[in-house]
């Protein structure tokens, strides 16, 4: 279900494409899928922490996005992550923000 719209059988997100001929996805094998989800959480958290947020896998089906004070939202996929992050953080999450880029450069 699309977490934003409440549409049943919602959109297939491009980062989680259903395995089928010609389509690139890491959903084609359970181990690769778990590995990709873990990696996605790790990478996203490097950005989200700068907004006071943390992402974790939720039962292998969704993700739990939470503030450091415990306010949380379930998000289905990366397509809905950033809108939820902006709601929880109460500010825009802009990957072109020079301050964010400077912090990422410093972290790297």
């Amino acid at each position, binding site marked *: 279900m*699309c977490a*934003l*719209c*409440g*549409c*049943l*059988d*919602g*959109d*297939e*997100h*491009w*980062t989680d*494409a*259903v395995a089928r001929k*010609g*389509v*690139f*996805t*890491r959903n084609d094998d359970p181990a690769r899928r778990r590995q*990709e989800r873990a*990696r*996605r959480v*790790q*990478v*996203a*958290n*490097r*950005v989200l*922490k*700068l*907004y*006071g947020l943390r992402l974790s896998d939720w039962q292998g089906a969704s993700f739990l996005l939470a503030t450091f004070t415990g306010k949380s939202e379930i998000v289905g996929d*990366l*397509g*809905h*992550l*950033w*809108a939820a992050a*902006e709601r929880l*953080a109460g500010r*825009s*999450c*802009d*990957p*072109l*923000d*020079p*301050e*964010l*880029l400077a*912090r*990422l*450069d410093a*972290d*790297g």
Partner: protein
Amino acid sequence: MVDAAPAFTPVTLLTGFLGSGKTTLLRRLLGDPALYDTAVIINEFGEVALDHLLVERLDGETVLLGSGCLCCTVRGDLAATMRDLHSRRERGTVLMFRRLVIESTGLADPLPVLSTLRADPVLRHHFRAAGVVTTVDAVNGLMQLDRYVESMRQAAIADVIALTKTDIADDDAIMPLEARLGTLNPQAPVLRVADGPLPVNALLAAGRSPFRAIGEPDGTVSHSKARAFSIIVEEPIDWSSFGVWLTMLLNRHGAKILRVKGLLALRGEARPVAVHAVQNLVHAPTHLETWPDGERRSKLVFIVEDLDPELIRRSFAAFARLGVAGTSALVSADPI
């Protein structure tokens, strides 16, 4: 042998500014024997009559929006018309069509049409987007591109640009327009369609044209507020970092990112992966069998509006480093 419908019926979107010759082009296309099994959905019956077996009209302009989620935007009228066509085809009460052409209005934003194909739970199992053909008027095209943002956006998202009215325009007007279109949307072939045989195959192959990188490695070109530029990366890209970056970028700036088309050399993947986005709508990535130019490296072409290409490049690089850095960054940090 009984004719069967294709597993996924290709849908070509025909768009273009007001008076740019969409319906004239459509009428000529439908006259070609190759399109005898094509169904057509148009927004209104205009002055150019369409003599075709299967023409459906959209009755409304209703756009049903989800609560703020662009990827779930469904044009209710379009979805209902397409479902009805599909249902009647299954029951054998209409021509066994194997292709669908949707003609949009001159001021339409094509995005809801494309998102309808993907978001509607019935349609997405039976139809697939085959490409966007945009008509551009050779006489007024330059003025329209400069003056009307709709015209510029329609050209920017095109897979193929059909240049119309070249029979009544001077070469002095056509050549600058072709050059402008080439810089605005370097991925799209520009075909003159006013005179001579219609390049039906090239138009129908919209969306399957080979990937062409531009201006390597620094190919920023400007077109009023719109810019096309490329990012070329020699090192393999981390798929997770790319997904995090592009979703974040499209969430904040999707309306200004008219087009993203690219080939990715991903870490852990031998074959190239093609990505293709129109504003917030990103198609499922696909595997290609071989590298088109024999060089294994990532190439992304962006067409953006009012965004700084250098900032996007810098952001891409910063996020790419997240995929190769160690885990030390997971320690807590003060929010920005």
